[in-house]
């Protein structure tokens, strides 16, 4: 890995600014590991819940122009087994890891945090924004400033790990939510979770294509939305941002860096370009540094803030 890609994220050095996002390839230690082998600088576990979840009945994914709808439904083996997978990953790799957790309220989040404290994860991400369990849990927590504040504060009080709040794009003002998370002590933000959700209908069967009817939108068409929200939030907060949504090239990654993100997630693009996408984007970033004369990834400047 070329020196130029090294990135400091909350005091931890990453070999590459590329992040494997929550829910993508993160079901098993070997899934995480192969992404590292392909060039990811930091990986995120599947969002873990207290009890195991098999997720929604299929179909759980459907291709749409510019991306995919998914309604995985937070399938995961539960916190205990999930942390065991993480431990196994950590035995094999020194690459930093984010454990993502999902809960429905403050107390459960605190409980999960206490368990995560005893894990070998490096960072704790709060999934406040899953759009695919609406029927079960209602509007995502990330839609409420108060809830986000309360949960982040409660988690911060007990967490041994730096805390990342993952927010939803499906809100009226993401900046308000981001400010609440920051005020509550979040160490970083992760923007953005999937959009919508959206829906597809099979006109011959006269049924929704996804059995859960609705699914969050990810993939290339998300990029302009993600950039706008990251830029808006970056203009208001001081904590670092993990940017994601539709990234599929080094150019895209640099664009998101200029919008204000510090490190960059690549999820759905794995479908379009294979697991090699991490290494390819690393290389494309290196090429950009070379041709543009920036010393390093970290030296790439963001746009001027909106509210400067």
């Amino acid at each position: 890995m070329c020196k130029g890609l090294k990135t400091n994220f909350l005091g931890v050095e990453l070999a590459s600014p590329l992040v494997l996002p929550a829910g993508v390839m993160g079901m098993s230690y070997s899934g995480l590991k192969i992404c590292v082998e392909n060039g990811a600088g930091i990986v995120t576990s599947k969002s873990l819940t207290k009890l195991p979840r098999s997720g929604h009945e299929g179909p759980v994914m459907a291709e749409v122009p510019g991306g995919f709808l998914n309604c995985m439904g937070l399938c995961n083996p539960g916190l205990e087994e999930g942390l065991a997978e993480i431990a196994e990953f950590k035995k094999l790799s020194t690459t930093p890891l984010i454990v993502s957790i999902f809960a429905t309220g403050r107390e459960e989040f605190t409980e999960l945090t206490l368990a995560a404290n005893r894990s070998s994860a490096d960072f704790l991400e709060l999934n406040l924004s899953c759009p695919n369990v609406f029927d079960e849990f209602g509007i995502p927590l990330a839609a409420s400033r108060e809830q986000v504040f309360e949960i982040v504060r409660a988690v911060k009080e007990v967490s041994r790990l730096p805390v990342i709040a993952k927010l939803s794009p499906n809100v009226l003002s993401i900046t308000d939510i981001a400010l609440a998370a920051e005020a509550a002590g979040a160490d970083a933000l992760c923007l953005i979770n999937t959009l919508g959700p959206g829906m597809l209908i099979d006109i011959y069967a006269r049924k929704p294509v996804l059995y859960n009817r609705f699914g969050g939108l990810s993939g290339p068409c998300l990029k302009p939305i993600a950039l706008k929200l990251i830029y808006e939030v970056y203009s208001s907060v001081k904590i670092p941002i993990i940017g994601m949504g539709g990234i599929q090239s080094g150019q895209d990654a640099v664009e998101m860096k200029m919008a204000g993100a510090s490190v960059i997630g690549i999820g759905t693009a794995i479908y379009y370009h294979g697991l090699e996408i991490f290494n390819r984007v690393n290389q494309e970033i290196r090429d950009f540094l070379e041709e543009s004369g920036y010393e390093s990834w970290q030296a790439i400047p963001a746009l001027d803030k909106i509210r400067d």
Partner: protein
Amino acid sequence: MDKRVTLRIADIVKECSDVRTYIFQHPLAALPGQFIMLTDFAGGEKPFSLAWCNDQEFAVTVKAVGPFTQRLATKAAGDIVSIRGAFGSSFFISRHRALLVGGGYGTPPLYFLARRLLEAGAEVTVVNGARRSDDLLFCDRFRRLGVEYHNITDTGGSGREGTSVNLAGELLKTSKFDYVYTAGPELMMKSLIALLQDQPCQFLMERYMKCAIGICGNCTVDPLGLRLCVEGPVLNREQVERITEFGVYHRDAAGHRIKFTDRGEKIT
């Protein structure tokens, strides 16, 4: 595009009490070993290997084992389903001497393979195993191909008595094969691999699949992290030998590790 398409079932062939072949009139570009994801819009979307596929039609052969496949068994020609695919890796097409070792619903994809091998000029030997002779799939279809064909069951009805692995072992001792292909219960394949040494061989390996496009990570195998929906389901011997979970455990819809037992069943 993962090319979702909605189709009417053109025809259904009852193979035995709990196995049916569903035929679709649709040109699918698929290779032997590849699979489709199929849903009937009533909950569940499941992977099935192609039993054959040409410019006009394709078919999958399904064993009714649980809620989804049992509901499929109640469908009639004309009913609507939707498929995505074909997905995954496919069998290498040898042009010399091939041994195909199949068991249970692993046999139909080997039938698709046998046809393509014959087209490529290979000499094909098939070992088709099952518990009981009633459960032997595709006997007549294989026979009509004119391959060297062996039935084998636990009880010996309509063929030899024993296991397909034993028979394959005998054949491997007496003849030389350029390529061995196997599909069926994982413990069967696990026994077979012990006999293979440096024999070139490919395995059709199954894991729980959801996205089928290499994103969700549900189908990865330890410790390599290969995704069976992309890098699999067809794997080489060299890959399978390095998969520590092969024949040992697999992951369910929640990602729980489930052990394989001697009887080919799964317990937590």
